């Protein structure tokens, strides 16, 4: 019997080694795997490469992971925010590497990793400093930049419901990077507030098929609207 349900946050994160590349889902609070990130912080790892849309906010979650010195490199589209002081300090101290990627190229590079695409030509970023040193190509009257997949060892994501095969549904804009990261990582770890019986999810509504999911842990939601 396939059963990807696991008992605790600490258990699902136990094998992540120093130096791992980890995709972390979420766009703002929506889809942010808060408890998995907190668990990652408890692991006290070093040399991590983190892929997220941002580089941490305030003094919690990813920002604390950055502050702790666990993170060697951040790949993201928008590190600078009013409350990104932890990243800012590490960056200005030269203690963290930043790979800045236009948001759509970030999404497409993650998709490429999951989809077995070796590289793709994107118009986004052409002629900008973010394409410096990258191959370009003129195709059918338009200019493109060659971008490569972002592969990763682990993905930590949040979904709304999961069954024991790892089939996932998301809720509203919390879908964002989840399905892409699940497919791009070697090992995908998911937190959900609701575990459901196999067959309970509408097969037309499943967004991430279980094939992309390795471990699922139940964590209560702090969003009152999610209790429905």
């Amino acid at each position, binding site marked *: 019997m396939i059963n990807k349900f696991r008992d605790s946050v600490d258990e699902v994160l136990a094998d992540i080694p120093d130096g791992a590349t980890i995709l972390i889902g979420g766009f703002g609070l*929506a889809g942010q795997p808060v408890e998995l990130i907190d668990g990652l912080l408890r692991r006290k790892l070093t040399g991590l490469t983190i892929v997220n849309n941002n580089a941490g906010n305030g003094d919690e979650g990813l920002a604390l992971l950055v502050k702790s010195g666990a993170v060697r490199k951040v790949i993201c589209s928008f590190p600078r925010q009013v409350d990104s002081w932890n990243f800012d300090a590490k960056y200005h101290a030269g203690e963290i590497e930043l790979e800045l990627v236009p948001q759509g190229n970030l999404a497409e590079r993650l998709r490429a990793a999951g989809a077995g695409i070796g590289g793709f030509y994107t118009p986004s970023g052409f002629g*900008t400093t973010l394409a410096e040193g990258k191959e370009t190509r003129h195709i059918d009257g338009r200019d493109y930049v060659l971008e490569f997949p972002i592969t990763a060892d682990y993905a930590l994501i949040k979904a709304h419901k999961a069954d024991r095969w790892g089939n996932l549904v998301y809720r509203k804009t919390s879908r964002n990077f989840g399905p892409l990261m699940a497919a791009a990582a070697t090992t995908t770890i998911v937190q959900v507030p609701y575990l459901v019986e196999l067959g309970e999810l509408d097969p037309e509504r499943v967004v991430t098929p279980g094939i992309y999911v390795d471990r699922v842990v139940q964590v209560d939601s702090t969003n009152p609207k999610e209790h429905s």
Partner: protein
Amino acid sequence: MSIGHRHPEKLTRDQMAERVANDVPAGAVVNLGIGIPTKVSNYLNPEHEIVLHTENGMLGMGPEAHGDDIDTDLLNAGKLPVTEAPGCSYFHHADSFAMMRGGHLDIAVMGAFPVSKNGDLANWHTGEPGAIPAVGGAMDLAVGAKDVFVIMELMTKKGESKLVESLTYPVTGLGCVTRVYTELAIFDLDRAGSVRVTETYGNTSVADLRTMTTLDLIDATE
């Protein structure tokens, strides 16, 4: 249209947003950037059914959410809680940016540092040494939308024009801006660098604008 062709005062930020709203065709799919562009939604005619896109993964975004309506799973690109309009749909980031990059959005409305006469846009990075760069979806919107409308003050506080011959700031996208809405005038751009002034405000003449911008502007106000 509530703002006349030659409004006697220069436009406020809200009036600039309203002026953009008046140019959005009924049924258009529009992405509104953070800042003044977001204000455009306040002036859209509900009967026109403008479909708002937010790049984090939604078409048919409704107004900002308040009080009990706030749902932290339903955010816009500025990470503010919003609501659903009937007919909305959700999708993941790759699908959302495929929609943008693939040329399916009718209009993106964005702010800018400067814009060049041939439509090059700079709005993601001041270029100051030591500044932490952040880009988000700006480059994807710049290359993807059928029309890129910019809302910006024409003149900086130092009295320099932000509509320029060529960019000195880091580029967001080349030749992408099709129209610039400012407090003093509307400028239609093309990739060849011909700039047409279609409306002026605040008793500003096209001759005044030529002096201010040092650009060879075409008078298309009549």
